[in-house]
């Protein structure tokens, strides 16, 4: 069993981003970067499968600039065996990323691909499903539980209103939801060890895939601000306001 874990370098989730003053994009100057939280959950799930003796090898892969090596090293420190950077300065869209990942899937032939349900920058929630279409693999998105027994994969998914369980054939794609697991922190010895694990760099152009963007960002702005209202002193005053001012209760 070989597991491929595609990850993404994003703005740290604690950072409150702002548009650039000229509205051409988000201001990423001097902003702390990190592995996308859903990707951390994906790495953790792969590592747990390996620790349970159900997988032999975990390959972390990312599409991005040279700086993304940092997040690949994090994945290696968390337990991935080797890493691949598909290097490009193009800010590829999920469709382009899926096409590049498809090339890696063709080379590596993983049995299972685990990735985050969405990246917290673009909030697109597309890559796993698109890779499913391009590979023809089965998919189970928004996983909160993954059970792998031999060739049989059972996944519980978080759906609107509850949970759904699917049995899916391998090779398969699983995207992670929040409650799948709680990712570990990398230990210092493992961080040191990660430095000597293999990290291959493949220029995206070598994969011969068209990743030119189809979406042009016209502008990035702040959402409409909501004005702060009033502080009421008592429950009685609150009820009065809701009844007589806002008229939302009767």
């Amino acid at each position, binding site marked *: 069993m070989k597991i491929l874990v595609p990850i993404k370098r994003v703005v740290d989730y604690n950072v409150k981003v702002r548009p650039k003053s000229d509205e051409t994009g988000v201001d990423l100057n001097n902003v702390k970067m990190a592995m996308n939280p859903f990707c951390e959950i994906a790495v953790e799930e792969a590592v747990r499968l390996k620790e349970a003796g159900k997988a032999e090898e975990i390959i972390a892969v990312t599409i991005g600039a040279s700086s993304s090596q940092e997040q690949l090293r994090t994945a290696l420190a968390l337990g991935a065996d080797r890493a691949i950077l598909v290097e490009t300065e193009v800010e590829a869209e999920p469709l382009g990323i899926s096409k590049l990942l498809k090339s890696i899937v063709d080379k590596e032939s993983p049995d299972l691909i685990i990735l985050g349900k969405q990246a917290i920058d673009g909030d697109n929630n597309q890559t796993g499903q698109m890779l499913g279409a391009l590979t023809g693999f089965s998919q189970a998105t928004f996983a909160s539980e993954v059970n792998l027994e031999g060739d049989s994969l059972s996944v519980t998914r978080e759906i609107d209103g509850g949970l759904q369980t699917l049995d899916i054939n391998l090779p398969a794609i699983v995207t992670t939801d929040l*409650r799948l697991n709680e990712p570990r922190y990398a230990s210092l010895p493992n961080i040191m060890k990660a430095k000597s694990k293999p990290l291959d760099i493949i220029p995206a152009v070598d994969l011969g895939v068209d990743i030119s963007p189809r979406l042009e960002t016209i502008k990035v702005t702040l959402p409409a601000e909501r004005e*702060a209202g009033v502080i009421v002193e008592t429950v009685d005053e609150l009820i009065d306001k809701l009844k007589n001012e806002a008229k*939302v209760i009767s």
Partner: protein
Amino acid sequence: MTALVVAEHNNQELKPVTLNTVTAALGLDQDVHILIAGNACSAVAEEAAKVSGAAKVLLVESGAYENFLAENIATLVSNISGDYDFILAPTTTNGKNVMPRVAALQDVSQISDISAIESSDTFQRPIYAGNCIATVKSSDSKKIITVRNTAFDAADATGGSAEIITLEEINDAGISKFVKEEIAESDRPELTAADVIISGGRGMQNGDNFSILEGIADKLGAAIGASRAAVDSGFVPNDYQVGQTGKIVAPDLYIAVGISGAIQHLAGMKDSKVIVAINKDEDAPIFQVADYGLVADLFEAMPELESKI
């Protein structure tokens, strides 16, 4: 030019979010078709035919579509997509599951979770948990879109008289199998459809204390929600979660109880018409978006509110 709306339903009834998606579709094109893919779901097609603005309803029934497996539904939508310039679905777990698969099959870059339409190729969508709004222009000839339902009004569920056309397009990839579904049973309205929502956060301290919210919810006919902090702490299941990683809601009245107001929670509820915050920490960010704030211990304020409301 025609738009196709991939309907959300449970084989018995049309989900209201479909109506918001129809409104978005009508904003792009006057000729709107609704796809009802499922099993033994002709009643849903009849319901869809009455939706105001629907020109045609496409009905396809098969065991392969009963549980909306992404592999099968995506192939279906892709195979019938030739006639359509726009394909839209609500940003529900089903829509999110299926539509990118359709987009990749069609070699289209999907536009996720649109919150406004500027023109037939330009859309607004929230990014970074709603901290920024991106305006994007698509160069794809076909537009594949998921729609943030709270940003569009619901189309009228009645008044239409669309023709129902039955399709025989059956695809069963046979690579995934539905096992079971556990849908929380509740007499309360669904979060995304409720007029009033009362949500608890970390300040609730534990899951049992959520019962404090139930009495008020019963009186107001409200749905009960929660912040991610409450879900992460194990107080309530994840399907209660309101926020960027949970449900996006916009009720007439949203009551946040013991919720500090993390960015990711605000992203899920700040379009509510009236927001009430009850929190003992007067510096909690939730007060910055609340129309009415009450700085109080929720364990005292909530019973009082319940008895007086």
